[in-house]
């Protein structure tokens, strides 16, 4: 019988109350300094992890708690793989890029997802791919090895495609509503890359190679629009991203993508909040985990800004909250 995730989704419905409400974001944004923001945060779900004002430790523990929920509640291993392999890909990027560019000291990594860091380190020298390494990762490693010019940009390009492919391999099959969220995210990424390529004066073929599969718009279509200066028109015509047309136009004109990033995240958060996710299936659990990831990432930005005494108006240019 197909997994219904009934217990998981019931639990997630109750856990969603722990997400910070808009009012709390307003209060955090209005906090005078990082101490006041910390006091506000101590009264929320994060309070249980906040010891001695160590925010980084708090967020690390919070992320671990959410992942623990994911692993305990998920009735489908594909969901756990889809979520946790994203961090493995990031770790692989740090380790492989550093090793291949002759970085002398051990590189800083994130907590391992499902693949131990030693496996990622030894993958570069192993003649046979380790069994823990997913096929897509082994293929990307082969691609990196076969690169004629081993530049950081070329490695990044392969790893970007790997990150997209790993995500699109496991997650979209879960539910159409969640698949449209992932496709929108991929479109946003592709439009951003294409706009930057245009500003860098790259030709159509070169920019198409940097674009990722998995969005509603094909890379060739986006690259064509970029070369003809029609990116804002194309994004205005893309489902869910209609409002980004003028934002992308301004971003290209001002050569600043801050507003584009913020508006994109606002759209994606909106899709997660109001998207018609099925009650039966893994999508609500996946959406909850991703919402928490966004929340933690935004809190990190907010607290860093408060510590640097950044003005509220400048902070609001980056954060899609409040």
């Amino acid at each position: 019988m197909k997994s219904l995730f009934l217990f998981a989704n019931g639990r997630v419905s109750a856990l969603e109350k722990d997400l910070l409400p808009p009012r709390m974001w307003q209060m955090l944004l209005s906090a005078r300094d990082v101490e006041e923001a910390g006091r506000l945060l101590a009264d929320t779900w994060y309070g249980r992890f906040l010891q001695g004002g160590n925010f980084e430790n708090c967020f690390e523990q919070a992320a671990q708690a959410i992942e623990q929920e994911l692993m305990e509640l998920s009735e489908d291993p594909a969901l756990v793989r889809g979520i946790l392999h994203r961090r493995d890909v990031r770790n692989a990027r740090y380790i492989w890029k550093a090793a291949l560019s002759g970085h002398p000291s051990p590189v800083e990594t994130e907590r391992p997802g499902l693949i131990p860091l030693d496996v990622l380190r030894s993958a570069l020298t192993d003649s046979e791919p380790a069994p823990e390494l997913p096929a897509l990762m082994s293929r990307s490693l082969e691609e990196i090895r076969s690169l004629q010019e081993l530049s950081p940009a070329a490695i990044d390009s392969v790893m970007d495609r790997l990150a997209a492919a790993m995500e699109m391999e496991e997650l979209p099959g879960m539910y159409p509503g969640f698949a449209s969220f992932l496709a929108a995210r991929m479109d946003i990424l592709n439009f951003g890359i294409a706009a930057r390529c245009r500003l860098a004066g790259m030709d159509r073929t070169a920019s198409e190679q940097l674009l990722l599969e998995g969005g509603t718009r094909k890379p060739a279509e986006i690259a064509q629009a970029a070369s003809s200066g029609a990116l804002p028109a194309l994004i205005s015509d893309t489902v869910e991203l209609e409002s980004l047309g003028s934002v992308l136009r301004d971003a290209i004109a001002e050569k600043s993508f801050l507003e584009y990033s913020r508006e994109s995240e606002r759209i994606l958060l909106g899709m997660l909040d109001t998207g018609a996710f099925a009650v039966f299936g893994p999508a609500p659990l996946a959406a909850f985990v991703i919402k928490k990831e966004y929340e933690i990432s935004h809190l990190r930005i907010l607290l860093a800004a408060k510590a640097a005494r950044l003005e509220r108006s400048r902070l609001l240019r980056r954060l899609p909250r409040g």
Partner: protein
Amino acid sequence: MNELIAYSGVVLAAALSGIGSAIGVGLVGRAAAGVLSVDPKKFGKLLLLVALPGTQGIYGFVIAFLLLGRIQGADMAADPSFVWKAFLAGCPVAFTGLLSAIHQAKVGVSGVALAAKQPADAAKGLILAVFVEFYAILGFLVSFLMLP
């Protein structure tokens, strides 16, 4: 043979609506258990949503019980159509009970999520689930009116 056909009505009424209720209560129960694992104070709000798909089984049981009484006191030789009347009388409550309990459970699971996220709207989820109940009641009434 005639008796077997008549008793089939009893079996259908009790079994199918009972199966529907068991599935339905199971579905909503699992979702409610998920909410209660975080917020045990919601038990009162969720209890009705869990119990609601169970009513179809009761309707089926009542019709089966009444039908059984009629069959046991009937003179089937005098009325040859009795066996089919008895069989068909069990069908409406059986099929509406089976299907409505499962669909009511689906509404109930959504209601559980609603009650967890927006406790003030918990009653709305319950009302929506009650709409499905209406068709189980119609099936029950038709079966009752068809009793031979």
